[in-house]
């Protein structure tokens, strides 16, 4: 059997800026069942423009690790309907995006929810579960 060398190679990482937004379908899913599959599907994802996806060798449906010094999550890639400015990605406001938001507010109490610096790389890992995001808080 040939050895799959690829799986030992680390995928390249790309710098990206992320801004968060609200989505009515995700809010609806949140109201109904914040632990449900629908909410996870609509939350654990990152939207990027076609050019950025091409540059990073990604396609819709891929899973990526999005990480910075605040945290790291694995989410699904989605393609925006329109072309976006290069280097800008979008995540709906959720526990997944909040894993990447800095808690340092400069003493002002308002975190940078809409201006997140992170690195993105293709992975084969499963999408981060909600349980793993709250696990460390359990007493």
């Amino acid at each position, binding site marked *: 059997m040939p050895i799959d060398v690829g799986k030992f190679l680390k995928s390249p990482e790309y710098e990206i800026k992320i801004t968060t937004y609200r989505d009515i379908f995700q809010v609806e899913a949140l*109201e*109904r069942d914040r632990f449900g599959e629908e909410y996870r599907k609509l939350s654990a994802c990152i939207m990027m423009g076609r050019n950025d996806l091409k540059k990073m060798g990604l396609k819709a449906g891929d899973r990526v690790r999005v990480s910075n010094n*605040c945290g790291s999550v694995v989410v699904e890639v989605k393609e925006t309907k329109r072309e976006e400015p290069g280097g800008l990605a979008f995540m709906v406001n959720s526990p997944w995006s909040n894993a990447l938001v800095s808690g340092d507010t400069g003493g002002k109490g308002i975190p940078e929810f*809409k201006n997140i610096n992170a690195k993105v790389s293709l992975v084969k890992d499963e999408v981060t579960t909600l349980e793993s995001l709250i696990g*460390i808080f359990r007493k």
Partner: protein
Amino acid sequence: MVTCTGCGLLCDDIEVVVENGKIKETRNACRRGAARMRGCMNRLSPSVNQKPSDIKNCIRKAADILRNARSPMLFGWSNSTCEAQLKGIQLARKLNAAIDDTSSFCQGILIEKVLQKKFRTCSLEDIRDKADVLVYWGSDAQDSLPRHLSRFSYFPRGESRQRGYEEDRIAIAIDVRESNTAKICKGHFYRIPLKGDWDFILALMDALSGKVPSYDSKKMLELASIMKKAEFGAIFLGIGLTYSIKEDFDILQKLADMLPNINIMPMVGPYNMRGFNEALFKETSFVNRVKFDGKASHDSSYSIVEALRNKSIDTLLIVGSDPLSSLPRSAISHLANIPIICIDPCVTLTSRIASVTIPCAYSGVENGGSAVRMDGKVVELTKILTTNFPSDEEILTRLTEAL
């Protein structure tokens, strides 16, 4: 007709079909409102230390925890009735506790400016009847206040705007993203870079003063011309703008001063966030981030984010909010160290780690009361369904008595 508690619009034209004690169908409600009225799948159960209990025992245990706390904080409040909010403020006074709400990390600063009358503002009915220029700035109303455009701003016929959006009204979107609202503002979408709002305001002020703006001069002059000609306009300020310019709202005031026919209106997501802000403002002159200690002190260190970051609170009572879901994970590790008392209709991420959980009724569905709409109008809420769950107001009353 009943009132929807899905968002800060508090739409009062909702029809509901009730069958077997449940809301089977809603008419006129948006997707968000309908979901809120139908309720969650996972109702919260009473528990102490993750073990099933009854509400009476939970209240007793919560009182014990609060009695022994040296620096408690009471947080949440944006999804509670005005009556419950007042009980919460009274409880905070009694306990010498800090009290804060979700406006602390979104629109609180703006609402405070409006209550201090630093911005010219108006009612949603004024917008519907008179407005000809509508500016959505850092706000995707279509997704966060879904009936804003259809009930009050762009689409309806108003007293002085009988031709609606076809001829009488111009909608403008200023955003970093072509949101669903921006898509409606065809031809009047101004895309700005991340954190570009400050430069955009400066350029717009240049254009309004007759100078050539340094930033996209052609489009900026066009925007300035539309805003100058407005007979009755409104800028709807969303959290996109708030997060971008943070506390530097003086520049926005200067812009508003240059536009005498334009009103300023903060967009408010949760249904009664403004109610809490107004109630606390009336009692303390501050809309959030207050610590009672004989007198009321206000400081950013009493904000939920800073209090958790600085580990300056030793107990957290949460009413109708889920900080574990809505706040940055890197700021809230202290939640793992302190007792949490959670009052909510539903299981939340935070309730899963709480020491005491107390289920309450869905306000505006299972109990009535009043709430303050995003523009300051007081609206009565209707009880639609009968439930055995006590309201959050009742739980707070019993908790105060138990103390």
